[in-house]
């Protein structure tokens, strides 16, 4: 059984990697700083470690999906991230793709392969 859990951990890690990005993009139509995102996602049941999220934000910014701005007015300086124009487009497309994956996978899982319709 321990073996199965090890496999699960590994697979879940792979599975999460992509979904976290969607989760992050979904929250950034309004500017957010890193830790507020961790909290927001956590409240919605998506647990992201800050050590994963912060580097991810920087990467998405580097790729041009996010824009950032330092807010130095508060007690401690914070970097706020916001979807860029490209980021917005990519996010909308990504949502469509994601929904189609969910539909297909649900279909496959529920049917458990009983329904054989040709090669498809």
């Amino acid at each position, binding site marked *: 059984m321990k073996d199965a859990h090890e496999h699960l951990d590994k697979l879940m890690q792979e599975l999460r990697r992509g979904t976290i990005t969607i989760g992050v993009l979904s929250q950034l139509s309004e500017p957010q700083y*890193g*830790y507020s995102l961790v*909290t927001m996602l956590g409240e919605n049941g998506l647990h992201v470690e800050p*050590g994963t999220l912060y*580097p991810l934000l920087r990467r998405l910014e580097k790729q041009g999906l996010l824009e950032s701005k330092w807010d130095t007015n508060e007690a*401690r*300086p914070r970097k706020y991230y916001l979807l860029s124009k490209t980021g917005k487009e990519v996010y909308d497309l990504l949502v469509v793709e994601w929904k189609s994956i969910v539909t297909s996978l649900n279909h496959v899982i529920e049917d458990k392969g009983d329904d054989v319709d040709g090669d498809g």
Partner: protein
Amino acid sequence: MMSMEMVERYIFAVMQKLPQSQRKDIAIELRGLIEDMLEDRSGKNHYTESDIEEVLLELGRPKELADKYRNTKKYLIGPELFDSYLYILKVILAVVGISIGVGFAIQVVINPVNILDHFVDMIVSAVTALPMAFGWTTFGFAMGELMGNVKKEDLQWEKEEWKPTNLPPIPVEHSRVKRGEAVTSIIFYAFFIVLFSFSSDYLGVWVFHDGFNGVVPFLNEQNYGTYLVFIILILGIGILNECLKLAFGKWSYKLVLYTTVSNTLSMAIILFMVTATDFWNPTFMSDLVEVNVLTAGSEGYDTVNWIWSRVTFWTIVILILSLVWNGIDGFLKARKNK
């Protein structure tokens, strides 16, 4: 205040692993994050040392956090270069290994008595040279990876787009180039190159009277230096031919054309050498008599003399026949592939 010291140490440790250009930015961000996490845990400004420890533990090892920021490889040679690396490594190890083997064979031929010493020499060279070749190749590729300026494309030979319709047909069994044969030929050519460059002393009739006591050479020792260049050239062409065969993998008209051209070239060189009057050992017959292999005037002497006087003619005949045969054979094999 002691406890904030721990935070600073943590941030410092992460920064050490990051490129200079990103340090300042990430440091500010990270400090903000840690403070946010602390606040979240215990309310404003009331965190204890154990709170800080927990937060830092949650962030994980500084090195791992830095790795996530860099998002870069944790490998010596990445998947982009790995195929090329393996290929080059195999070639280099093969060349080094074969050279050591050939070196051993030559030493044994030249001085068979000390075979054990030569064997030990071979083992020693193998143990030192092979790891060295491995090490340097790996080092070279690791540097390429590190500098990051060697792209996969630079190392790819086929640049054009790949299409399934361009897949070459499976060669007919008979017309495949046999790798074993080609590799064996290369080893032999290499062996002879080294043997010839060592000395012409061993190309001739080996005389045994109570053990080995000398060779009556076929070739004219005086002009050997001049001919050596040509001989090595011919053997080099031979190696090139075998490499071509390996590269093509199967017989095709193009390959036949290449090999025929290079074979003709080698033959021209040989013809030029052989027909020059001073190629063969002019005192071959008398040398044989001198070492008591033959007695002047005997029947054996006459036979050998008859053969020796026609050696040029027969060399040429055999060469032409083999050239023609190679050409026809290759052509027939290539035709099967059409």
